[in-house]
């Protein structure tokens, strides 16, 4: 067995294990951490395929940004297992259909390569080949319109996020020194005259 094959099976085993734990673990934070492990293994497999740009971006975007925000939310949850399990049976048919669809898709992809339709050797790039430049060139020449579309969709997402959290003009309670200096004593203190009453 070639060393590369060994590394692949090593990473793939971790990936499969971590992905299984993501769906089976009860604690959402642990599940999220296993998802992080799964991303790391996937990026290792991509590095094995010499797609170092994609591998690093996977870690940067999914591990470094998406999962951090995910953890932020998950950590603040009050984990109530009974409440989580309530909807299990009602969601099961929908989940089953989605699972079947995904299995069918994967089966189709595998079947194509077994039928030998798309069987072609990918030539090995030499060590000086820059993934980053190749990806950049492809994105900004051939796929420039899809890229622009994607960025517009992202922009809509950003605007929507801001709009959701915007709560109108801030009713600030902070002090303004400019107004503060004009305060007179009588604005703040009311001196009550209480005539002493004779003792009964």
């Amino acid at each position, binding site marked *: 067995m070639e060393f590369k094959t060994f590394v692949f099976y090593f990473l793939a085993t971790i990936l499969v294990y971590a992905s299984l734990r993501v769906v089976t673990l009860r604690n959402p934070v642990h599940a999220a951490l296993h998802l992080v492990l799964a991303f790391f293994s996937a990026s290792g497999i991509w590095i094995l395929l010499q797609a170092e740009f994609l591998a690093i971006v996977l*870690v940067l975007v999914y591990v470094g940004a998406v999962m951090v925000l995910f953890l932020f939310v998950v950590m603040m949850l009050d984990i109530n297992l009974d409440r989580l399990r309530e909807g299990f049976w009602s969601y099961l048919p929908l989940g089953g259909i989605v699972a079947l669809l995904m299995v069918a898709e994967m089966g189709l992809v595998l079947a194509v390569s077994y039928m030998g339709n798309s069987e072609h050797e990918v030539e090995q790039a030499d060590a000086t080949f820059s993934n*980053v430049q190749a990806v950049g060139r492809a994105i900004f020449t051939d796929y420039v319109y899809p890229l622009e579309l994607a960025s517009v969709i992202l922009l809509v997402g950003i605007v929507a996020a801001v709009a959701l959290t915007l709560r109108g003009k801030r009713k600030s309670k902070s002090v303004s020194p400019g107004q503060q200096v004009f305060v007179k004593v009588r604005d703040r203190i009311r001196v009550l005259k209480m005539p002493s009453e004779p003792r009964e």
Partner: protein
Amino acid sequence: MVETLQQLLPGFLIPYLNMGMQLGQNFFGSLWPDLVIAVWTVVKVVIVISILLFCVAYMTFAERKVIGWMQVRIGPNRVGPWGLIQPIADGLKLMLKEVIIPYGADQKVFLLAPVFAFAPALAAWAVIPFNPTLVLANVNASLLYILAMTSISVYGIMLAGWSSNSKYAFLGGMRSAAQLISYEVAMGLALVVVMMVSNSLNLGTIVEGQGQGRFADMGLGFLSWNWLSLLPMFVVYMVCIVAETNRAPFDMAEGESEIVGFHVEYSGMAFAVFQLAEYGAVILCSTIASLIFLGGWLSPVGFLPDSIFWLFAKMSAIIFFFFWIRATFPRFRYDQIMRLGWKVFIPVCLIWLVVVGCWMMSPLNIWK
């Protein structure tokens, strides 16, 4: 590996080296070259990490001395001559202390969190070039790799806060994580501008690109480095790395006397690893800053040769800058920190991104 060793070792050892190589060749057969490469890589990693850990230990000492002098004190001076053994004494003390795991804490995650904090600061060194040839892994996307690695360290803080099962640690963790995420955006945007002008993601190429230009031809290399042409980005980056490493005046994670941070529940070596992570991150960030803005190993003037010592000198200067501002500025208020990050630095970076883009497209482009 063999060539490097032959250059490094004294003459009388070389026959023994050759003999050892021959022996291994006979014993392992065709596996031997792979084995040599694997062992050599491990040796290189161990060398880099041990030097780094030594630097971290003595950086704590240097910090205490420097801040002591700035505040007209003496600083540590009891253990060893001039207090030189102080960091080792501190390390021993922390190792001998008990690691207390709070009741109800998530034990595995509690012990995993310091690892998450420290490991990225070590892993990033894999792609740092020390001179044109001395680099563990010359990856094409090395700047991206460093961004990816440094973005992982936020997990350590969040997990430490969550797993401690204490609301104060949790709030502290959330506070620090929010700060780190905010400043990461500005830092990333500053690096994007550097990537644009150097036309590369490779740190070695970025350094080499700074050695060209009108000033470099006149023998004034230090004026052609990125810090001058990208001055706003340099300032933003320098402030961002202070915030990213949770150092004063942005030390919301751990204000010794005022704020309870994410690691209140940690003690002994587990706590020490967080401190190691902080100092390791400071060294890493100052190295990256000297590579991408201060010309790395390039010599500042034409008549002196380029050498790895320039890189060390620049790193030390930036580390001194860290100490200096710690002794100078009072701590920021938290809402001021967030405002500085989101409302000042990110807009400045975005505007400068457009300015540099237009500059590069104009006939005045200086980065050809």
